[in-house]
């Protein structure tokens, strides 16, 4: 049963990843054969200010988006976990933005954050508040990326919804009998029993968030204004396919992979310290 997936993953993900890692140590323009250059690409990347800018932008996005996305999914799952009239429609509404094609989703948000004609700034103007330049202003350009990512949390929401339904009712009933408040029940029952799911979600979200910015940055800003939305995936793409520097692009890709691995270890360590990591 699993064989097709295993073969597909090995051929379409594993093998290209290994070959890409190999290219990281070459100078390769895709039009002539690669030339081995050792660690020269990594030295070039270390000396290029754009690498640091892209890394900083990516970290900014991950550190802001991941907690907000996980907490948002948790809040919505708690809110919509009870069987109530019409709850199905609300759950569908939460999930719906996740299935909108990435390109269409990015174009919608390009309009939403239009600095003069977009609904966000028109509302702000109506309230007499300042109208930020959003994507046109280096100071604010990254925030729309975070906001739009918060509307694509359907998968995390579903996972937590399932997790919540797996918690036996009797546990809550026993707590109620013992006089436990709703907050105490959340703190001492819901949260510990959901912890393995939250860990899984956080792991997954770190991976998603590192790569999430690619389509929106290509379509909405192209890295502008002045590199304020130049995230690592966009820089990798530009190095390889705009500038034919596949070696540098691969070296960046390898660095991004290692960065994600480090993030994994950090998240795992935090949860392990809290004693939840062995539950998954």
């Amino acid at each position, binding site marked *: 049963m699993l064989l097709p997936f295993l073969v597909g993953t090995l051929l*379409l*993900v594993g*093998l*290209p*990843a290994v*070959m*890409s890692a190999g*290219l990281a140590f070459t100078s*390769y*323009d*895709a*039009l*002539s*054969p*690669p030339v081995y250059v050792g660690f020269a690409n990594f030295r070039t990347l270390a000396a290029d200010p754009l690498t640091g800018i892209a890394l900083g932008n990516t970290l900014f996005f991950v550190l802001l988006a991941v907690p907000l996305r996980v907490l948002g999914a948790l809040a919505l799952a708690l809110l919509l976990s009870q069987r109530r009239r019409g709850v199905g429609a609300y759950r569908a509404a939460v999930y719906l933005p996740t299935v909108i094609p*990435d390109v269409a989703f990015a174009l919608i948000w390009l309009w939403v954050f*239009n*600095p*003069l*004609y977009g609904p966000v700034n028109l509302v702000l103007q109506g309230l007499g508040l300042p109208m930020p*330049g959003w*994507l*046109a*202003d*280096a100071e604010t350009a990254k925030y729309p990326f975070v906001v739009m990512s918060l509307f694509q949390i359907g998968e995390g929401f579903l996972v937590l919804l399932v997790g919540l339904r797996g918690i036996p009712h009797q546990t809550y009933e026993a707590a109620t009998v013992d006089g436990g408040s709703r907050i105490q029940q959340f703190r001492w029952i819901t949260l510990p029993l959901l912890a393995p799911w939250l860990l899984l979600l956080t792991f997954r979200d770190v*991976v*998603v968030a590192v*790569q*999430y910015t*690619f*389509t929106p940055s290509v379509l909405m800003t*192209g890295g*502008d*204004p*002045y*590199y304020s939305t130049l995230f690592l*995936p966009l820089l*990798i*793409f530009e190095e*390889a*396919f*705009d*500038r*034919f520097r*596949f070696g540098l*692009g*691969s070296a960046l*890709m390898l660095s991004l992979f290692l960065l994600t691995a480090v993030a994994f270890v950090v998240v795992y360590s935090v949860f392990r310290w809290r004693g939840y990591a062995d539950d998954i």
Partner: protein
Amino acid sequence: MSTASRLGAPLVAALVAAGSVGALPAAAQDPSVVAPAGDVSFMVFGDPAELVAYQELVTSFEAAQPDIDVELIHIPDQADYRQRLGLDFSAGTPADIVLINYRRYAQFAARGVLEPLGPYLDQSELVGEAEFYPEALEPFRWMGELMCIPQNLSSLVVYYDKALFDAAELPYPTDHWTWEEFLATAKALTLDTDADGRTDQFGLGTEASIFRVAPFIWQNGGELVTLSDRGLPIRLAFDTPAAREAIQWFVDLQVVHHVVPSAVEEAAEDSESRFQNGRTAMFLNSRRGVPTYRQITGFDWDVAALPQHTEQAGILHSDAYCMPASAASKDAAWKFIEYANSAPGQSVIARSGRTVPSLVEVSQSDAFLDPAAKPANSQVFLSSLPTIRAVPVLPGWVDIEELAGEELERAFYGNASVDEAIAEAIARTQVFFGPGE
């Protein structure tokens, strides 16, 4: 598609490319040996109106050469087109005929993936080298060999909205106006019509790039690049007094005079769209905009020459038909290129308004100068030819333009001083210049 698989796609493309590099054929064939027949693919960019012109060209060619079918591949956006072109070359599967700008073909020519077309042109019975404007052919010579056949040679001109000039009771621009007159006109046409403190109509629309600022640098007696003793470009020359002064003047159009939209206003609606909607009076563009602007029904428009300063100068815009060395049916591909650049072929595209034909004969015919078709002053594209100049042709020019453009844009929108932008532009682009030998 998940983000993971999105990033996987470039990897796969790279691997495909790795496997196919060795398969690229390189030798030119004698075009007279094999009878041309079969299918060829032809990739173009442009607005829907431009696409119609190329569709007409293909129809016209297929009527003349029934044995050859042409598949037209259309990528609307120019930036997407460049990316697609790069990806196709990387994968070893470019279209058989591609349009490439003279600023960008060198990166492909230097890597040997283009078929030199000079030998083909020499043997052509349909069209000869002497029939082209030399200004169009020269930039496409790489190491002395003609690599591609240019379809056009536009200069940068000022498109202007006659209705807005009439409303402001301003005279239309002449072909001999000055920087001062240009600025005064732009100021008079920049209006806050509803007095809400926000500009509703701009006098001018332009992008901030090397390509737009270059003619003004030349007009001020400056140079874009410094040349080595052997005449090869070795660095950007933005820091020379004449170049710096021109850049400052260009930047001041936005930062000081506000006759051009700010970064926020440009992001809300770009200048070309504002021009088409009758809310920007003048717009800098090449001939490329004509097919789209001909669809404007709300007002009358025309073109004028760029304003002049201490010297006269314009900047060359030229795209050419190039043949990747990997083209499967080179003879059939050449037949199409040959036809597209013969008088009948160039006439088809010229009638659409898309090009200033590179063939002298067609440029002086009604196909281009039709008095019934806009712009009425098409002659300005020809009269500016004696002073037209080209940017350097270098494999790294694409990178130089991109990096310097980022810096110029920063200054243009008031986020850096001109001196800061110039220093950064020179420092960041230096690596892409050759040793000058």
